[in-house]
């Protein structure tokens, strides 16, 4: 008897009118760690019937297996599962390419739209020292963002307003944060963050809960909002209604 019942989202937009869920029975496989990952379940499903899913590194580094397992966004390779019934769906809010693979390119364009190149008045020729705590506990962690787009898929602001809204989105904002916190940069990153909609974020913290790199996205945004407000950069009420 199978230990896992996998309900898997199946959709080939080139032939199917609508998505369906197909149920597969999968045997439990583990070792002395007692851990089986969601990605292992999908490998077993794919052996039974061809599945559209993407993966590469199996160690939380490449981003390619981001999806929803039991409704929660994350990397399949880093989602431990228990015996029983589980659902596998594509990341919410993205167009499906096939089955569990989505097209993240529109969200990716938001990252590209944020200019994170270093701005210095003279050409940069050196790199400077950075405090231990700032490097290891903040900047180096921002480096570890994998662009898995889980944070976009759970951000209420992005899901309400879409990518055309005022808020550039959680991880694109982290690109600005990295330059704001890295004191090498000479441009006004706080102002950039305001123009990129940092005050649109109401700090719900959903992004923090799904980030596989454990970046405290909402905490960093909160600090930047505070700093921006202290500098008088918080947008005020519109004084006149415009018709």
């Amino acid at each position, binding site marked *: 008897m199978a230990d896992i019942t996998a309900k898997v989202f199946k959709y*080939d*937009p080139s*032939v199917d009118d*609508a*998505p369906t869920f197909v149920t597969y029975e999968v045997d439990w*496989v*583990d*070792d002395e*760690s007692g*851990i089986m*990952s969601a*990605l*292992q379940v999908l*490998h077993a499903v*794919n052996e039974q019937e*061809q599945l*559209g899913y*993407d993966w*590469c*590194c*199996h*160690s*939380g*580094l*490449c981003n390619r297996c981001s999806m929803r397992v039991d409704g929660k966004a994350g990397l399949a*390779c*880093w989602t*431990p599962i228990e015996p029983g019934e589980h659902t596998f769906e594509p990341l919410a809010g*993205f*167009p*499906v*390419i*096939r*089955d569990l693979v*989505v*097209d993240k390119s529109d969200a990716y364009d938001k*990252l*590209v739209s944020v*200019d*994170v*190149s270093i701005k210095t008045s003279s050409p*940069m*020729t050196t*790199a*400077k*020292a*950075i*405090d*231990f705590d700032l*490097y290891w506990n903040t*900047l*180096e962690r*921002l*480096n570890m963002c*994998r*662009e898995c787009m889980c944070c976009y898929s759970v951000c209420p602001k992005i899901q309400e307003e879409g990518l055309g809204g005022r808020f550039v989105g959680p991880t694109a904002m982290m690109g600005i944060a990295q*330059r704001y916190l*890295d004191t*090498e940069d000479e441009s006004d990153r706080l102002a950039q963050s305001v123009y990129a909609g940092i005050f649109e974020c109401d700090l719900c913290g959903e992004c923090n809960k799904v980030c596989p790199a*454990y970046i405290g996205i909402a905490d960093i945004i909160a600090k930047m909002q505070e700093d921006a407000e202290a500098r008088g950069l918080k947008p005020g009420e519109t004084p006149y209604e415009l018709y």
Partner: protein
Amino acid sequence: MGEVSRRDFLKGAGLVGASAAVAGLAGCSGSASANSDKGATVAAESAADLGRDVAVFETDVLIIGGGVSGLTAARKAASEGQSVLIVDKGPIGHSGTSGINWGHDLATNDWSADDGSESLALWVILAEGMSDQVYDLAMCQALKRSRASLVAEQSGMILQRDDITGEPLGLNVPGPITSPHGFFVRYYAQHCKRAGIPIHERTMVLDILVNDEGVASGAVALDLRNGTARVYRAKTTVLATGNYSWIAGWNGIKPCSISSPENTGDGHRMLLEHGVALRDMEQLPCDFVQWTPLATRQGMGAMGCSIVNYQSVYDKDLNPVTADLEKVAGVTNSSFMRMVARTLVNGKGTENGGVLIDISDVEHDDRYYRRCAENLSRALGYESPQHVEACPEQWETAARPFDMGNTGEVAEVPSLFYAAVGAGAWYGLGFWGAYGSGYLAGESSAAKAASISEIPSVPWEKAKVALDEAYAVLEAEPENGIRASELMKSVQIAYYDGLSFIRDEAGIQATLDEINRIEAEDLPKVFVPSKSKCFNTEWRKALEIKSLIKCAKGTGNAALLRKETRGAHCRTDYPKMDNANWLVATKVRFSEGAFQAEIVDNDMPYIGKDIITASVFESGLEF
């Protein structure tokens, strides 16, 4: 299911890019098939004769591959004023070995006063003599010109700082090459896209187009999202498709390469099929992975050089693997691999063919492992034991063309440039070769493109052959068909049996026999269950198998020739390393349907044989 609609699909996977010229539309498709019916060879003279829709793109410089090499070549060629287009098989920034975003060591000489010659000396010694010195000097000099560290910080990355001083880790380090962590390809890809370089991701090149004059004139490809055909026309082409490590992996879980499923050796297969001789195909840089939990493939991050204290590596009985360390003048990743091989050959390896690492020694020294243990604990609730079982796995290959001069142009195919790591993948310094060769190829391909007034003619009939073959694989309904993923796995298992890093003649020959059998008997039966052209993973695998087979055969032929132990090529039947007789290159070529392999002299114009012999300690499996 309300959030997904057909409209979303059209938006997500539109048929062709807006800038494409679409040729050969349905109304034109009759002519070619009518010719086929007569049994005559079809001579396609234009895109309209291909018999199917094809999107045609033109650029000065075509870059195949979007990893460290390809992005560097693209950035450089674009900065020289050439139009550039990148084609990448996976999602950009996340495909191939580079796209795993390990936390890459930025191995570079731009912190030192070296003009490239000291770097070359180190490269040659680390590669244990297996170097094309003319090309590698040009590559090391290109790395210097590239200012890779500044490019990293300018494109959004923040390089590793020293724990105590906070200074960039590259400062004040003796030797020409420093290796701080923190070069992430995802930033680099963003940076190139931001700079306006067009990137076609999830697009798989089927073949380089070499015209009747023997000149590279672009490539023919499939858009993997929807299966549509593409032809790229270019004045020069840079082949930056990475390695063929995926030959040592299957299905992602053990035994498995820690490389990427993109690294099937498609570039090397194309080179071989176009008559290009490859050197040192037998070499296979390895790294180590933490074996438990089964669910993950957590790499150790160039273990042979990350673990500063070699006495923290043990056999199954907790005796140091590196007991002979004092006899070896300087430990390299290669000599470390051979110490591990010796442990395994002597039956002292762990249950799964590895060694034990005392991570209490490394956790606080090594940036990569610090995150590894932390992530396993946080993400999977797994607490690593003090002694972690670590197993060797292949992550790179050293093969590359002969005779690339000091430009990276492939001698046999003018206007084709090559960029990849090569033998310098040793010591975890893959970045060095990838960035240096990419920069060199970018410079050289741009200079040549600038000297060419018109894009060369396209051999449309060759594009047609490649496309017809690809679509036939999708449509085939062979009797007793073998599913593509199963067949790929059988090739990988056959390779692993005899061509994993511990080898002997009988094992290599057995692998070659089995690969030949698979090619003759099983490959014609390859079967793709779904006939949809939309992101069809089995179709892609079916198309990749011939590349794995070609690389396995090339590797086997070269491995039979090198009758000594060198690098991670550990021959139990020839356990000694022999500088006197084996500072040579293996040369493999594919001609008239067969492999030819020979040993050739290795030119050593800068770092002579005497220096190499004195500097490379002969630490084989016995010494």
